[in-house]
């Protein structure tokens, strides 16, 4: 028999008391795990949207008073109308974007830096069904929509080809190789995209020149997406430059919206973690309290152990073992409870968030719970060693 076995048997006998002591650890750990899990889910959602959204900047006709909304891919839809950005302004836009990036990053190299992808949105009918056909620059668009995967067929290679979104292909009942009439001309379906979860799924993409010609909108674009090649790129400066120098268009930095949302998110996380820390501290005092009661209740047992040869350090060890048991139970239950809490609270805090449990936080919960329990036990254990054996029996 070993000392930890003696402690374990005693813990089992006093299970209700021990569970009570564990409660503080459970609540504290659960709060921290819950907050971290929710915060992580929220962050993942924002990153995901950023990635989905692609461009750092969107250039739209100035007269259009549409609201840019992060995660709402309806941006292009609003551009459908009679307001356009003249295609001849693209080189100017590129000049400003590349120039600002060169300045900011100290790049000497000539040539194109930013990805500049013009879009033309045309609401038309294919096979008697209303559909939005988007004119794109195939090479530039690929750099903006990096998540695009061609499910069937190939990506656009020629001007008489078209690419169908997953849902659009289904609704219009078109297959790779089909020839589809498009206003005055016709295009061959080169490929069908994998589902993206965005509006792209409902659209058909053709080279912009083809669409301009077919719809009689030569030299016009609905909007321009700009993606700088770096995260630290000065998109706000580029936006300012475009707004200042090119009349008739409005440039909006997507990152600004994202950054402010991210910053808000971080502030909320910090605030909630502080709350979690306070809960943990309160839990710690709870454990100290129950441990002190436990010491008082077990004065006799401690006296017995001392009388039969336990040293002070062995008494401390016995209490630390008990703390570790409390920590393990508290960590496991705290993790489970915290994760459940996150699943319930997550969607309430961040609308539409899918919360995923984080196995790494289980390790964190265990370490945290054991640390709290052990710290909480130090003083009670010290008090236990100060018990005089003779007094411990006299009090009975």
């Amino acid at each position, binding site marked *: *028999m*070993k*000392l930890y076995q*003696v402690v374990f*048997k*005693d813990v*089992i*006998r*006093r299970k209700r008391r021990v569970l009570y002591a564990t409660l503080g650890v459970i609540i504290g750990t659960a709060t921290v795990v819950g907050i971290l899990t929710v915060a992580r889910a929220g962050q993942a959602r924002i990153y995901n949207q950023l990635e989905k959204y692609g461009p750092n900047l969107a250039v739209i006709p100035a007269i259009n008073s549409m609201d840019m909304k992060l995660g709402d891919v309806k941006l292009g839809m609003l551009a459908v109308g009679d307001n356009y950005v003249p295609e001849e302004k693209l080189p100017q836009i590129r000049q400003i974007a590349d120039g600002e990036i060169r300045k900011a990053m100290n790049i000497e190299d000539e040539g194109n830096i930013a990805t500049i992808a013009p879009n033309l949105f045309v609401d038309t009918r294919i096979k008697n069904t209303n559909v939005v056909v988007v004119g794109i620059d195939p090479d530039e668009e690929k750099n903006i929509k990096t998540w695009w995967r061609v499910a069937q067929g190939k990506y656009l290679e020629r001007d008489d080809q078209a690419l169908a979104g997953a849902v659009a292909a289904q609704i219009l009942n078109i297959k790779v190789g089909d020839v589809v009439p498009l206003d005055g001309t016709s295009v061959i379906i080169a490929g069908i995209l994998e589902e993206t979860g965005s509006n792209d799924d409902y659209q058909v993409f053709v080279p912009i020149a083809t669409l301009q010609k077919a719809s009689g909108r030569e030299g016009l674009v609905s909007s321009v997406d700009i993606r700088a090649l770096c995260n630290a790129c000065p998109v706000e400066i580029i936006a300012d430059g475009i707004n200042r120098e090119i009349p008739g268009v409005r440039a909006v930095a997507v990152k600004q919206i994202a950054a402010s949302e991210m910053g808000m998110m971080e502030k909320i996380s910090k605030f909630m973690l502080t709350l979690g820390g306070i809960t943990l501290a309160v839990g710690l005092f709870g454990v100290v309290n129950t441990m002190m009661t436990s010491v008082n209740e077990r004065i*006799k*047992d401690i*006296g*017995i*152990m*001392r*009388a*039969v*040869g*336990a*040293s*002070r350090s*062995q008494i401390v060890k016995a209490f630390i073992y008990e703390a570790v048991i409390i920590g393990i139970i508290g960590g496991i239950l705290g993790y489970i409870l915290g994760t459940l809490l996150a699943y319930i609270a997550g969607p309430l805090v961040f609308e539409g968030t899918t919360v995923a449990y984080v196995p790494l936080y289980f390790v964190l919960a265990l370490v945290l719970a054991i640390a709290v329990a052990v710290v909480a036990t130090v003083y009670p254990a010290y008090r236990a060693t100060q018990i*005089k*054996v*003779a007094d411990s*029996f*006299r009090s*009975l």
Partner: protein
Amino acid sequence: MLELKEISKVYGEGQTKVIALDKISLDVENGSFVAVMGPSGSGKSTFLNIIGGLDRPTGGEVLMEGKRIDDLDENKLVDVRRGKIAYVFQQYHLLPSLTALENVLLPLVFCGANNEDEDRASEILKKVGLGNRTGHKPGQLSGGEQQRVAIARALVSRPTLILADEPTGNMDRKTSNDIMGLFVQLHKEGHGIIMVTHDPEIAGYAGTTVFLQDGRIVKKNNKKTARIRKDDN
């Protein structure tokens, strides 16, 4: 083996000063069986606690095998408790969460038990008549049985001196006599025993009886183990 030189124990100061032991001197030879008698509050238990190092005297010296133990620091006192001295208490003082066997093993847990020790512990339990009760917890045992477990626990560390504080205090006459029979047997086997009691009949089992009153030894009887001789007949 045990020498007490003018042991004093004073509680409190000034007006509230209580003298529990007043310059007691006593020699206990190896293997002797001493009963300490006296009315309540005469200092019997304090006396026993000081001998065993559970309490410290405020004056005088306690020598065990020629070495002072009253001024040892905690860690060295632990060694004394682990080897030479063992206790049997009136209230048995068993750990309620452990079985009889585990309670007997407890002293060895603190100095590192191994499997051989477990065999030894169950042998000792057999010896005190509890061979068939090793797996029972204290709550499932009678008072007499619990005290046998406590005695077995005292024996497991092979002590030279057993200190017993009213070991039969909570028992009826028959159980008391059974337990005392066990003490007498241990004495015969060479264990030294110092036993505190207020019961003259129980004290009758001991070879020497010391009477305490108001913290002093007022009388000392050497009965030449009368009771044992009677048993031998």
